């Protein structure tokens, strides 16, 4: 009897430990309104709220980790965190290396921002963040591409004349246009929406988050969140 109780206790304990496993969410922290570092030094933005809500629905304990965009996929597959939630568009190239959940935002148009509206895109120099769908798109067009490590630098390059225009997600560029920069009429539809990235061997965790995203889509709370942060069109 005693061993039976002990056995049950051990089972309950290990089951409890299974639930208490911490899921580490990797993000960039430099891409407002998707993810950025707020005044208090914490990760904030659309994906912070989304990620916290998804973890609550999937009954997981989550922890946020900041990582450089350039090494965000290598660090995921090597197991330094468990998922990427960093405004990453679903593309075929990335899908070969990692697995994505269903998209949590629809494909967002990418827009151009320049110093004047009559800029010649094909003949000019276009800035984009390195290893993004926008950079790949410009390279495909055969235009002159100049890449930067952070979104901030791509915009700064247009301001100081190093590049003629910058191509990035429209929601991000909305936050930077002002007196000196204008958004062009032309926009591109790139990628298959933004989703969470997982290791290909981690199908179980991906399933949990996939279900949580579906439940947020079903009850309309995802649309509310998208509207609140103005990140993209709604579902």
């Amino acid at each position, binding site marked *: 009897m005693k061993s039976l109780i002990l056995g049950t206790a051990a089972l309950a304990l290990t089951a409890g430990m299974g639930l208490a496993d*911490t899921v580490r969410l990797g993000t960039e922290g430099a891409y407002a309104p998707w993810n950025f570092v707020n005044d*208090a*030094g914490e990760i904030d933005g659309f994906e912070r709220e989304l990620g916290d809500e998804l973890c609550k629905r999937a009954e997981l304990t989550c922890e946020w*980790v900041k990582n450089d965009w350039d090494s965000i996929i290598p660090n995921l*597959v090597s197991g330094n965190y468990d998922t990427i939630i960093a405004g990453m568009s679903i593309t075929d190239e990335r899908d070969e290396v990692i697995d994505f959940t269903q998209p949590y935002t629809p494909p967002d148009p990418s827009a151009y921002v320049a110093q004047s509206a009559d800029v010649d895109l094909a003949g000019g120099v276009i800035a984009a963040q390195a290893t993004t769908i926008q950079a790949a798109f410009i390279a495909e067009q055969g235009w002159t591409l100049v890449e930067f490590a952070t979104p901030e630098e791509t915009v700064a390059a247009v301001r100081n004349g190093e590049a003629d225009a910058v191509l990035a997600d429209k929601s991000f560029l909305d936050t930077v246009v002002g007196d000196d920069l204008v958004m062009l009429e032309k926009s591109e539809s790139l990628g298959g929406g933004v989703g969470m990235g997982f*290791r290909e061997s981690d199908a179980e965790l991906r399933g949990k988050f996939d279900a949580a995203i579906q439940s947020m889509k079903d009850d309309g709370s995802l649309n509310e969140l998208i509207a609140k942060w103005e990140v993209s069109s709604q579902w």
Partner: protein
Amino acid sequence: MFSYCTDPSTLEGLSWLSCYLTTGKHVNLYISVFVVLTLLAITAPVALLFGFGAASAARSKFLPLRWFGKGYTSIVRGVPDIAFFLFFVIALDQAFEWMRHKVKCPDWDQPIRQGIDFVVCDAAKLPLSTSPQWVHETYGFFLAVLTFSIVFGAFAANVLYGAMRAVPRAQIETAEAYGMTHRQAFWRILVPQMWVYALPGLSNLWMVLIKSTPLLFLLGVEDIVYWARELGGTKTARFTDYPHPNWHVWYFAALLVFYLCFTKVSEVVLDRIMTRLTKGQATAAGEAQRKAAA
């Protein structure tokens, strides 16, 4: 931080600045200064130790040891830093986890390499995924120290190897004539005398090391350059209580002052060490010191 900081949009001038400079984000910047200084304080002696070990190995009479010493210095010096920091750290981390995996989960039946994924059992994760964030950060910090030490150790080894050869042969011969063994001559004659030849090269290395800390962010450690870039970026009123245009120039100017002061202090200290080491040495500077004293 201060009680009057609740609504920064009403503040102006110095009081605004005092609130701005004490936000949680800026505190992170100040902490990163200490992180960088700690890293340098630990890395420098460890790298010197690695360098000394490798230089002694490269002089060894035992062939495999000599190969090891020479191989280490040539290979590590030849690989670009950034490739080393991207590839080596991940490989090192995986090597640690692989060893723990073999010990802790002997009855694990799935392959560790699944495509490009690296999968070990939960108990072998380093640090455990349940560990608090500071454990992860400390672990990343020590990986950084180890990587920096290996890279700079290789350069230090080359400098020390040259310095050991620069000690006049006559000194060793005299030691041998006094009946010292090879080991005694090495520790009592060669090592105390080689530093004066090694110091110019080592001080160069120290200066390069001071400025290579931005590589830390590749390892997930947030250093001062990362925070200066993050804080200096344009901030719109939608996401912060302290909106400002692009202030990179101010933040980088502050970094410039920091690095210049640090370099100056290092130079003063290194100069003093040099004067001390020169004392009584059979070098031109040592000769000059003797004449000045006489």
